[in-house]
């Protein structure tokens, strides 16, 4: 049997020592965690105001008035607003004109339906749950600013002068998800809308050229919808689990 190389032994020794010392510090730490937690909490209560975002929101509110259905500010992380799908273009226009959001960042959609296929980490295969039973039990949970329908459009525009990014969300009707294209306001929306169209099946009115951008022209279905199965994942067990081979002598 080969000898264990010296550097490995040293490394193991070092790791052991490190673990021991860490345990010691942990035990010493545990005597005074409450104080530090309290001070932290006080800091957190003082901190979370984002004046920049508050100001931007008030500007948008004066411009859009009641069109903003809901808003959310995550301090230091951004500003979310939700509008009605009919106001989708006018909201983007208002952001560009009043907030100077000239930079078009990205546009996409979210499917809020819970996946009908299980996502359990431990199982060897996706649990194929009977869709009719489960989907009734699971309810849709929306993210920031809430929601009403299954599909939501989301777009991020950024103001370089005010250094604030605005996420604009809009609920799309379930039966016929469609919205006005943003191309007249942001020329860059073109490809993003084509992508959202093929991935989610959202139609953009007044878009000059809604062909598929990634997928072949005759592709059926919209892959990023939650009810579109990920075939490779269904055919094969979770990678990693399948690779575990039994050691010789190790029987069931």
């Amino acid at each position, binding site marked *: 049997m080969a000898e264990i190389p010296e550097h490995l032994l040293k490394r193991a020794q070092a790791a052991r020592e490190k673990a021991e010392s860490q345990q010691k510090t942990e035990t010493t730490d545990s005597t005074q965690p409450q104080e530090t937690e309290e001070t932290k909490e006080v800091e957190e209560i003082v901190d979370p105001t984002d004046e920049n975002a508050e100001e931007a929101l008030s500007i948008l509110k004066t411009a859009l008035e009641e069109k903003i259905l809901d808003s959310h500010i*995550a301090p230091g*992380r*951004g500003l*979310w607003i939700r509008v009605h799908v009919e106001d989708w273009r006018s909201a983007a226009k208002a952001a560009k004109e009043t907030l100077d959001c*000239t*930079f*078009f*960042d*990205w546009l*996409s959609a*979210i*499917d809020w339906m819970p*996946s009908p296929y299980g*996502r359990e*980490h431990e199982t060897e295969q*996706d649990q194929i749950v009977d869709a009719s039973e489960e989907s009734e039990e699971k309810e849709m*949970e929306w*993210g*920031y600013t809430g929601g009403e329908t299954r599909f939501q459009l*989301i777009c*991020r525009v950024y103001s*370089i002068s005010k*250094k604030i*990014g605005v*996420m604009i969300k809009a609920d799309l009707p379930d039966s016929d998800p469609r919205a006005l294209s943003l191309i007249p306001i*942001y*020329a*860059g929306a*073109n*490809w*993003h809308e084509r992508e959202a169209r093929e*991935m989610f099946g959202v139609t953009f009115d007044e878009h000059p050229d809604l062909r*598929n*951008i*990634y*997928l*072949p*022209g005759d592709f059926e279905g919209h*892959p*990023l919808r939650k009810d*579109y199965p*990920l075939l490779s*994942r269904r055919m094969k067990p979770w990678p990693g689990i399948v690779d575990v081979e039994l050691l010789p002598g190790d029987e069931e």
Partner: protein
Amino acid sequence: MVTTESEQMAYIAAQAADARVNVEVETDEGMTLNLGPQHPATHGTLRIIAKLDGEKVIAAEPIMGYMHRGYEKLTEVRTYPQVTTLVNRIDWLGSFANEVPFILAAEQLMDVEAPPRAQWIRTVLFELSRIANISLFLGDMAVQVGATTPVFYAFRDREFVLNQIERVTGGRFHPNFDRIGGLKDDLPKGWIEETGTVIGKMRDFCDEMEELVLGNEIFQARTRGIGVIPPEVALSYGLSGANLRASGVDWDIRRDANVGLVYDEVDWKVWTHPDGDSFSRFWVRLQETREACNIIEQLLGGIPAGPIMAKVPRIIKVPAGEAYVATENPLGEMGFYVVSQGDLTPFRVKIRSASFSNMSITPWLLKGVFVPDIISILASLYFILGDIDR
């Protein structure tokens, strides 16, 4: 002679017929030129169909999707730590830089902050991948306008940087080194000094490129005043990174919207160029490589001691919420919009990759240029197909 020529003509006709498989091209006016999908100027498999009137492009249409891997769908069946393996392969020349925004978004949702040492090492590796990425561009751009030598210098010198990345992470191209709450491992012994000498070499490389390429008369003739993008147009198409700064927009996420990296600790400069042409895009990237050398040198001198991992649970469940984190990657703004519903896997990940937006300007930009300029403009926009197709 005659037979070979007719054979050639037949071959070209067959090629042209093949090119029209999935695009309808009206052939009544002008000629249709197909570039790619395999073309040396495309860094992957991009195809461009251009309609020509003589030497002039009337319309150009990029066709992508040859490399679409569906990462946004795949992230929904991967746990958070597994996602870094996927995102490594988006911009494969600066892989480490891809991992950072995703990890930062997950950290933001979990309310975890990496310890200072991890943040510093992250920033160093981030800038090293920037040098590794852009140095190849500097050589490649010269090839596209007809100078073959610089690209070999670029491949030679880039190797020093890749070696340094490999010594820390174990991978030349796909480090998979960033973790939620810190880094996988600490720096090996003697790495800081070695990186210092490598940075010296990369400085020499930048000087060499400046002499070889930037001052070259042919290079200037092929790039000056070609492919001009005005700042308003650049902004409305969502161009970012050096492409935006070359149009005179003074905007850099590292300085203006920095999240989680330590650029505030060092003294550096954002370079812009007012012209907006192919030449200025090259110039800005060259200066940026130098600036990255500056940043790394300053950071190496002051990496704080301490742990490299914050305390995070072994099984990572991310609380419900939404976060968008963008970083200034070598190619431009790369961001991850992560929606979590408190699960082991993300609920939805939107990947905002720089090249996708940078490429979306090409139909507008290529209109009216001459055929040889297609190549130099595409090279100067600098895209990587993995970053477009995701």
